[in-house]
């Protein structure tokens, strides 16, 4: 399991018409649409650089900067030509390569050692990213559920058990009766002064309430004074917020458990 396949066997360079492409064709002619796919397949400037280095079996610690820079720029030009969405990262890398190249050309005053090598930082980054790629390949090769293994299950024929039903006592029933009658009274009294409530306004109120408290019981949003109309407006507001993914509703996994509203924790971009 710990043995590693060469990276090229793990991750195709690109998919062309559904077929994995591990190596660029040796001859220079590449169909334009294929090229686009290939260029698109690079995960970033480091990926592209590593590809160029590997393609020529170069030692990562001793890159011929001038040559690699030339090839890198060829690709960047190609990307421009094909109007691919050229991320700034690629241009930044081009600038870095150019800088390294120029520093290498400068005469050295002191005897060179590795730390002085202008390439050192780039080499370190390349090695780091190569290790990242290796880790991804290791992960991809690990046997996992839904590919190498599946969970096994037998069916069960359970003896018919009575599902215990909730108990209710008469007192609780009477109290419920009293509560609903009292509310019906209030409902009547306040029905007269009907204030226009907009859904937008209620959405705002809910959000403000959620700023003060991380969680809000669903029932807190409804007040009987507002009557049926208020209930509808609150509910519509909650549904709108939910649709806009501004809030979440959670409920304990049991029937009739109270609902709770909370803010959506944003995965900031």
């Amino acid at each position, binding site marked *: 399991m710990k043995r590693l396949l060469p990276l090229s066997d793990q991750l195709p360079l690109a998919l062309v018409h559904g077929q994995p492409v591990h190596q660029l064709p040796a001859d220079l002619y590449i169909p334009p649409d294929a090229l686009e796919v290939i260029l698109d397949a690079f995960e970033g400037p480091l990926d592209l650089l590593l590809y160029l280095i590997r393609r020529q079996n170069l030692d990562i610690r001793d890159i011929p900067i001038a040559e690699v820079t030339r090839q890198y720029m060829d690709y960047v030009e190609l990307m421009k030509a094909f109007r691919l969405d050229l991320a700034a990262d690629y241009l930044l890398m081009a600038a870095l390569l150019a800088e390294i190249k120029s520093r290498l050309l400068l005469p050295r005053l002191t005897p060179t050692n590795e730390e002085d090598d202008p390439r050192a930082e780039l080499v370190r980054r390349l090695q780091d990213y190569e290790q990242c790629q290796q880790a991804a390949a290791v992960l991809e090769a690990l046997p996992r559920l839904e590919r190498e293994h*599946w*969970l*096994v*299950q*037998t*069916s*069960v*024929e*359970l*003896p018919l*058990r009575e599902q*215990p*039903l*909730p108990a*209710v*006592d*008469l*007192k*609780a*029933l*009477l*109290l*419920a*009766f*009293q*509560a*609903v*009658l009292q*509310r*019906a009274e209030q*409902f009547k009294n306040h029905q007269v002064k009907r204030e226009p409530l907009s859904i937008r306004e209620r959405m705002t109120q809910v959000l403000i309430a959620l700023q003060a408290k991380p969680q809000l019981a669903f029932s807190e949003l409804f007040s*009987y004074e507002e*009557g*049926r109309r208020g*209930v509808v407006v609150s509910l519509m507001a909650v549904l709108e917020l939910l649709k806009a993914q501004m809030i979440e509703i959670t409920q304990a996994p*049991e*029937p*009739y458990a109270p609902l709770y509203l909370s803010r959506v924790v944003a995965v900031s971009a």
Partner: protein
Amino acid sequence: MKMELVLILEAILLTANQPLTVAQLTQFFTQDESVDSVAIQVALKQLAAQTQERSFDLIETARGYRLQTKQRYSQWVVKHQEEPIPKYSRVFLETLALIAWRQPITRAELEAIRGVAVNANVLKALIERDWVRVLGHKPVPGRPELLGTTKQFLDYFNLKSLDDLPQLAELKDLVV
């Protein structure tokens, strides 16, 4: 392959979410593997014999074969299927209370008193528990259903008749 076939079938059945017929099992094999229905039937017999030493049986139902926990282990298995006893919601109790004290009552009347629409699931649960039933239809346009309580409801609460339902005035005594 022969010995393997038994285990292949076991693996297939242990990951199936429904019983599989011999014909369906045949579909799992390619032409090259040349596993026909006879081979599968033979292998299933062997599998059935092997499961004698295991916690599950090979069962043939009308829909096909499946692997099922042996009856004698069900007492342990049942434990991760247990759910906590649910509790009725306030809506449930209020709806039941209104039906009990104000019967016969229509859905529209329930809605008028509670100020919100009748929860269809609550009404369904009340009817399934045999506590509420349709008494008849109100002779008004639309002929809405008239809801009332059942004999089972009275039995559950140890009431001889609806007249025994406590009145609101008695609430104080009950609460103390």
